[in-house]
């Protein structure tokens, strides 16, 4: 893994491409794209919990929608109030 890291760093390959760590993109306060997610743990219109390989992402807000869900990325839209991460204990 370490060797691999060196090579990829040298070639400037994005980390989310070669491993399964998530990439989170937030546009404004109302749209959030999570790539490399693993699954949905909870989904309500005010609270959404999404699991990834390194931990969970908790999203609080109003009228949350999962606009588009494919096998490796998810688009959460709605009024996002706060986000927090629960890192896995290694």
């Amino acid at each position, binding site marked *: 893994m370490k060797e691999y890291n060196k090579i990829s760093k040298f070639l400037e390959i994005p980390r989310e491409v070669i491993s399964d760590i998530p990439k989170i993109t937030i546009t404004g306060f109302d749209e959030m794209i999570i790539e490399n997610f693993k*699954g949905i*743990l*909870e*989904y*309500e*219109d005010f609270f959404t919990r999404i699991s990834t390989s390194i931990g969970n992402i908790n999203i609080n807000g109003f009228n949350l*929608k999962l606009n588009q*869900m494919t096998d490796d990325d998810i688009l959460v839209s709605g009024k996002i109030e706060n986000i927090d991460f629960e890192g896995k204990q290694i």
Partner: protein
Amino acid sequence: MIFKIIYMFFAGYVTVNIEGFFIERFLNICRNKNIVLQDLHRENNTYIKVKILKSDFKEIRHIARTTKCKAKIEKKSGIPFFLNKYRKRKIFAVALIVIAIFIFGMTKFIWNVEVRGNEKISKEEIINLVSQYGIKKGKLKSSINTEKLSNAIRLDRGDLSWIGISIKGTNAIITIEEAIEAPEIIDKNEMCNIIAKEDAIISKIIVQSGTAKVSVGDEVKKGDLLVEGVMNGEHTGTREVHAEANILGKIVYEKEKKENFVQNIKVETGNEEEKNEICINKFKINFNKGVSKFKNYDTITSSKKVKLFSNFYLPIEIKKITNIEVVNEEKIYTEEELKEKIIKELEQELELEYQISKYEENNVNKTDYTSLQEDGIKVKLVYEIQEEIGEKQLK
């Protein structure tokens, strides 16, 4: 995003309500099976709404059963569902396409020939002329080379100074410019005679060169020799010259007519009936019975070509026939009225026959003679015209 919407529309999608307590589990299984979920949102505590592609729906059912959820279709949209809905109206769709193709096909032909700019030459003559060169009803537009044809026609016809053929829609518009025939100019050095160009009585003759063959008061016919291009001299003998002379002739046109004081005239009663007829090329469809209900009537026919948009003519004509009822009535004229009427008629007839209006007005002298008869009057109208009647002709 727009591509996705278009793709969904073409592939067909269903809006599904999913109800149950383990919705998260349902979503995760969907993710694992590579099912794309669109516009997922929670309507209520217990159910969510989601859009799924038509092809994925079977699997959704299966997943819902395993997760103890209920999947219910709310709405089907997209082209596959639309086609399925109207599958019984195949003939309608086919007919629509056939008509579209038919109309498109029809626009490839010429259905109307229009002539513009003609004054002396009649419209029919031009249409006949161009039809010899291939511009006629029902001809393929693409088979006509307008430039080549207009050149060929202009070379063939001397009385056209210019001809332009343009094809607009299903119209062939032929614009012509008539040539003014140049009078034959005879060179001063050429030997020539002078002949009469009209029947007339010579009233004045001045010869500059040549020998006069007629004298004042002679009646001449058209084409008669007036001045011969010959000079007789005592010393020089006979020699030929270019004849030059001013010859004025009196041309007389006359006509007489007799009419009675009591006459039958037609009076319109104001009643009319309309009939319509459709002509498809030469095939006629009548909408009314053939026989008119009036005893005496005049008929006016007007026809109109059916056109698409502004200039796509179709080979269909709508004919409108109007019958106007007339009644014969007796009218008694006074002498003055009758005379006026007859003179008017005679003027028109003479104009038609001899084109009096082509002469200069100052040279035209008009007189009328009236004679009373037992039950009517007889009017004679005489035109006397002073006119140059000589015309040069090569020997």
